[in-house]
């Protein structure tokens, strides 16, 4: 039996188990609705358009946060890479960055940007950007010296060497940063919506939770899970292709 098939069987078995436990009443409906009901509820809210604005806001914020994290992280990574003294000074800080619970800074962002998308994006970028910085440094470190020498042999300018040799050589490592930036942007945006927003999927889930609207709450949670799974699957397909080419 293939690893992939076994994985699908485990996931399906767990869903069926939860379905069974919900149906026979072991898990009360007040705690969790059955997975099949989640699907039905999701269909209903998507058809009604009741949460369309929240869904649009959340995914727009995630997209903005991802793009900003990747761009800022990449540029910062290149600058830090080109300044070895600066790198020596801040690399220990980067290494311990994720020990800091970024969400504690939310009052600062509310003061700076007010309640809304700007604060949410700022927190998500703060959470995601360092993963891209680290991936950029790693990618640039791992460009084989011989490839740069090859660029010299072809008498390529510094910029052409960077664009046509160094960037493609570092891409598999940079893509790890892209994957992490996407993941952290999802976490940053949706989690922030719980605490500092009046709109978005996170806010809608918290709102439904407070009103005991389990149908809406689980439908929205299922939506997030489905989108995250699809996005990750697509990123993993690209990643696998890049990694396959990296093997030397």
């Amino acid at each position, binding site marked *: 039996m293939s690893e992939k098939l076994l994985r699908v069987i485990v996931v399906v078995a767990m869903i069926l188990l939860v379905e069974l436990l919900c149906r026979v009443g072991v898990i009360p409906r007040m705690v969790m609705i059955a997975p099949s009901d989640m699907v039905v509820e999701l269909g209903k809210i998507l058809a009604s358009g009741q949460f369309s604005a929240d869904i649009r806001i959340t995914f727009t914020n995630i997209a903005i946060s991802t793009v900003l994290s990747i761009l800022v992280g990449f540029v910062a990574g290149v600058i830090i890479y080109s300044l070895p003294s600066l790198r020596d000074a801040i690399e220990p800080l980067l290494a311990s960055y994720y020990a800091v619970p970024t969400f504690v800074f939310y009052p600062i962002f509310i003061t700076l940007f007010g309640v809304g998308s700007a604060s949410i994006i700022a927190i998500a970028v703060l959470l995601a950007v360092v993963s891209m910085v680290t991936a950029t440094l790693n990618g640039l470190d791992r460009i084989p*010296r*011989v490839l740069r020498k*090859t660029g010299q042999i072809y008498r390529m300018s510094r910029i052409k060497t960077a664009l046509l040799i160094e960037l493609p050589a570092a891409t598999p490592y940079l893509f790890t940063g892209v994957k992490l930036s996407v993941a952290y942007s999802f976490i940053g945006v949706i989690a922030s919506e719980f605490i500092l927003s009046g709109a978005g999927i996170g806010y809608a889930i918290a709102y439904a939770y407070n009103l005991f609207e389990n149908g809406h709450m689980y439908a929205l949670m299922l939506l997030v899970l489905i989108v995250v799974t699809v996005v990750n699957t697509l990123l993993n397909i690209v990643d696998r292709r890049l990694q396959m080419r990296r093997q*030397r």
Partner: protein
Amino acid sequence: MSAASGAKVVPLAPQSAMAPAHARLRGVTRVFDLPKSTLHALGPVDLDLAKGEFFSVVGPSGCGKSTLLDILAGLSAPQSGTAEFEGKPIQGVPDGVGVVFQEDASFPWLNVRDNVAFGLRRAGVDPAEINRRVDYAVGFMGLKDFAASYPAQLSGGMRQRVCIARTLVMQPRLILLDEPFGALDQQTRLLMGDELLRLWRETSATILLITHALDEAAMLSDRVGVMSTRPGTFIDFVETGWEKDRDSRVVSTPHFGDITARLWEKLRVEALKIMSAGKG
């Protein structure tokens, strides 16, 4: 395949002394600045490479062989002395010089065909001409069936063929090879040596090969330069006397044994110096 009568051993005398040198080094030294000291890596070195000559350099580890190659390639400038290619001082990588490195320098994100075409595209060569040259080089190096493959799908030997093909398409007049077969097994190395000799005959390019392997140097070269321990200088030049249509079968001739014995005689002394220094 044949050998000239007897190994012609001419200490410190470059071949074809009367012919104009294709590449020339005079009094070349290279010193590296280290954090707390300096490292005198090379020289002073004098060397004349005759046009169309196959010249190999052997020497103990760290004697400055690769530094010598970098200077001829224009990748590194000498501290003192002069380096010339085709009568002009070497400043930056000269036009007409190709380099094959020991490390795998194939681009993993490009397939074989695009790897081979890379330099031609950068040089703005006409697409029809690129196709013609790439077809030829890919066929010549036995890569035709792998043209659409990526380096990760190829063996180490095949990837080195890609790098040689990528150099070949640029039609270099001087080809510098820095231990190109160092990472390959013995059988593949011998066969790659045959490929290299075929390429050399076909292109009439001047070749400088850096190698650790005495047998490789003895089999492939018209002339072998033996370098001392660091700072590397030439302590012997050995003319092999092989005919141009030689191949790897020369390794079974007594003459091949004479050449390798001569090389080892000189190199052994240098290797012992390094060993005794290590013990001291």
